[in-house]
């Protein structure tokens, strides 16, 4: 089991509660200082945070460095985009063997986005997990590139230009996603539930097998577990989370395009996870916030903000190994 001091535990709990309180209060705070656009910015942070948490599940706990995670985000976004396009166009998605019409019902589209993310993760993971190390990094990148070019080839759905959405997903008459505060709280609720699920998962017997496989796969096999199947399951769950975040992202931007799947996006997700702290689940949310706020702040200062961001990344990797969450919540929770 985990060796943890009580003190570290308390400090982390406090940090989580304070962070959550701040996130809940954020729309009011933004309103009070008259900067409503912070609500939109933090909605993006929550959504990318969701994608980063899903990546942390495999990267931080399973040691699987997926360099193609943006592909699953893109798949979720395209599920929303394509079904919405068919509503606008009036044509059915398919007519055989069953007629499927386009839809903008969030209760249908969002779970479907997660499901498609999971299915693609199952197919990609089943092949990729045969390899390890750099080959795994590269094969996940290769699959993401395939889907990226596939999206560009979808001429019906805008090809390289993507799809502009005319409507957000509907969640019944009482929840209006066009209201940015409502949309913010919906994203926050989904993120909280997902983080809670992942936390339960990583502390379950299943999670222990995945974490054990990262540290010593041979020993896990000797204990009678199948690391491959456990890792694949984690990969699929992670794909579902990323797909769901893609559905939210499509709604936030009211746009879906191949750029969502570009390899730079995958790189940025890894950056968020490591910046925030790998294998912490809360860290990636902080990492997403830090990344987007840094981007926002530096972009205000200089148009060439990436020339600062690059060295900052290098610096974080070389000197701040445990990420921001390690610094907030105290020492690492487990020996690495």
């Amino acid at each position: 089991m985990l060796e943890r001091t009580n003190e570290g535990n308390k400090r982390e709990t406090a940090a989580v509660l304070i962070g959550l309180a701040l996130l809940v209060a954020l729309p009011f705070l933004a309103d009070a200082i008259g900067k409503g656009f912070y609500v939109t910015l933090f909605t993006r942070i929550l959504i990318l945070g969701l994608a980063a948490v899903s990546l942390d599940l495999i990267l931080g706990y399973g040691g699987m460095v997926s360099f193609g995670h943006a592909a699953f985000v893109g798949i979720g976004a395209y599920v929303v985009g394509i079904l919405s396009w068919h509503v606008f166009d009036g044509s059915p998605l398919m007519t055989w063997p069953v007629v499927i019409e386009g839809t903008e019902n969030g209760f249908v589209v969002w779970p479907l986005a997660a499901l498609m993310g999971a299915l693609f993760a199952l197919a990609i993971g089943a092949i990729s997990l045969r390899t390890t190390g750099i080959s795994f990094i590269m094969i996940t990148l290769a699959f993401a590139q395939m889907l990226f070019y596939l999206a560009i080839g979808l001429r019906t759905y805008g090809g390289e230009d993507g799809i502009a959405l005319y409507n957000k997903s509907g969640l019944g008459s009482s929840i209006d996603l066009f209201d940015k505060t409502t949309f913010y709280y919906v994203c926050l609720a989904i993120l909280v539930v997902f983080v809670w699920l992942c936390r339960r998962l990583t502390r379950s017997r299943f999670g222990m097998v995945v974490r054990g496989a990262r540290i010593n796969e041979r020993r896990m096999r000797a204990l009678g577990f199948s690391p491959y199947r456990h890792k694949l399951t984690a990969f699929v769950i992670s794909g579902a989370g990323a797909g769901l975040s893609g559905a939210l992202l499509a709604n936030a931007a009211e746009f879906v395009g191949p750029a969502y799947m570009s390899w730079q996006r995958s790189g940025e997700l890894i950056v968020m996870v490591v910046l925030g702290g790998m294998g912490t689940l809360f860290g990636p949310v902080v990492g997403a916030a830090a990344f987007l706020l840094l981007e926002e702040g530096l972009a205000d200062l200089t148009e060439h903000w990436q020339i600062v961001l690059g060295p900052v990344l290098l610096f974080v990797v070389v000197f701040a190994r445990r990420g921001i969450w390690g610094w907030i919540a105290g020492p690492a929770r487990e020996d690495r």
Partner: protein
Amino acid sequence: MNTLLLVEQGLNGLQLGVMLFLMAAGLTLVFGIMDMINLAHGSLYMIGAYLTATLTPLVGSFVLAMVVALPLAALIGMAVEVVALRTLYRREHLDQVLATFGLILFFNELVRIVWGPQPIFLKPPDWLAGTVEIIPGVPYPAFRLAIIAVGLAVAGFLYLLITRTRTGMLIRAGASNREMLGALGVDVKRLYTLVFGLGAALAALAGAMAGPILAVQVGMGESILILTFVVIVIGGLGSVRGALVGALLVGMVDTLARALLPTVLRTMMPPSQADGMGASLASMTIYILMAAVLAWKPRGLFPAHA
């Protein structure tokens, strides 16, 4: 499908292949010896192209500009190695991916500040601007033939360097056992820097030669970087022979797929759809090839440390 077109596309594939080999050789050497994954390799390619494009009007000759640009790029590469990458050799691959991802952002922005966001156009030297009829009826650009020749010459040079010289012996020894090489009194750090400089010069050579074919612009390094990774993963990480085979395979498959797939698809569906599908399928081909190779041989075709 006529034979002449096939010959022409075959040569195009060969040209892309040797270009990829120039990139892959440096990357795979760095990986084989230092166990280091370097995403910033594409930045050196971009720097080589920009330096050559800037120097050509100054010195009045494309070739002379290249002669000056290559050592400069090698120096930049060695400086990056000493300043930033040296601390990363013993780190996990994830750290290396991240840190060199940061370097890409830095170099792209640096180039954008120095040269501006507009692409620069670079003309091939006059004596290579025309075409040559290799087979009667197939005029082929002389510059592309020159690229093939240079690429094959570099492959030969690398073969001799690695198998026949003392430096090559040290490189091979470093790839199979670093600690032992250090224990025998070889200055491993200097060897690393040297190999990195060699890789940087090869990448810059590829970039300089790509200049007249493609536009010299920010981000040009990334598109070829990903192809290069596909090459070295297919060939087997750390193996120069694997890099050569992988590069020619990827160059050929990619070029032929782009040339042939739309035509093949046109026989099955309406032209407008066929062109879109064909282009996107063609872009996917090499990734499908890579996934297939890895699924079949997870360590690539010629694994270096068997």
